């Protein structure tokens, strides 16, 4: 009966205290690594640049490499063509990319939009110079589950990909 009313039942001894200290130190180390990763942008947001060349086109894509649910995920496309553009510029964007990010606005607006199950094609009026820059102001859809997917964006010539850039985007919780 005396043991039932003891106030020192479960009180840790020195050895248990040392073990607890080691566990806490390990936990703090994990926490420190996590915060350091966040400090250097490994947990987003982090941008990347990828390029591709083909035909007479040079394509540069500024994309969001690591993002989180609901965060801004801007996309900027630079298309250059030596000697300028003879006709409308067609850009094909992976449909899955458009589904995983919400677009607020596009500059400039495309003249037409067409699509198939795998991609959406935007047709732009040819610019005066030899470079077309398209900015897509967007953010990661808040309902996205964490994932890492590879997407592709390309310039079409005669309906066929001339320059195709591929990049990987990580969405963290």
């Amino acid at each position, binding site marked *: 009966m005396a043991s039932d009313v003891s106030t020192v039942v479960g009180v840790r001894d020195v050895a248990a205290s040392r073990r607890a200290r080691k566990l806490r130190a390990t936990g703090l180390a994990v926490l420190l690594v*996590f915060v350091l990763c966040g*400090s250097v942008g490994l947990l987003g947001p982090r941008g990347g640049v990828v390029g591709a060349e083909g035909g007479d086109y040079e394509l540069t894509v500024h994309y969001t490499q690591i993002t989180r649910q609901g*965060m801004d995920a801007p996309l900027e496309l630079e298309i250059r063509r030596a000697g300028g553009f003879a006709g409308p510029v067609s850009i094909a964007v992976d449909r899955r990319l458009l589904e995983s990010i919400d677009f607020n606005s596009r500059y400039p607006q495309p003249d037409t939009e067409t699509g198939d199950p795998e991609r959406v094609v935007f047709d732009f009026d040819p610019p005066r110079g030899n470079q077309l820059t398209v900015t897509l102001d967007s953010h990661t859809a808040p309902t996205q589950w964490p994932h890492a997917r590879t997407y592709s964006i390309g310039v079409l010539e005669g309906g066929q990909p001339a320059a195709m850039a591929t990049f990987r985007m990580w969405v963290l919780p």
Partner: protein
Amino acid sequence: MDIVIRAAITFVALWFVVRVTGKRQISQLSAFELILLVTLGDLVAQGVLQDDTSLTAAMLAVGTFALLSVLVSWVSWRFPRTRPALTGQPVVVVERGEVNEEVLANERMPIDDLFEAAREQGIRAITEVDLAVLEPDGTFSFFVRTRERPGAEGGTGTDVKG
């Protein structure tokens, strides 16, 4: 990156606010002060996270606060001279049965709070108190005068905390 910096700045600002507002424990807060405290937490959350509602952002803010909290306690333990600045110092509020009203005024501590803490320790009159100390966490420690009994020599008093 932004969240870690904002959380660190907020931590320092909160520490400063708590240090300049004085010693008060949660149990001594009035209903209005308690609401102010909750509102302060809400404002701080908005300032740290802003529009970022992701789980990672919340974990980063919590992690930064936890690490800085551990850092402050480690600095306080490793360098005792920093302790008064980091956590505050205890002050004597009653000595030999006399209340030091200047100290209570400096701490913006109502004398009623002192009386209440004394009552909770079964002290009927402040004259029974040899020494009362207002601790950095806002609690009072009482050293009660030992009543002289026939045939007994003087005692050292009793330490009770309230």
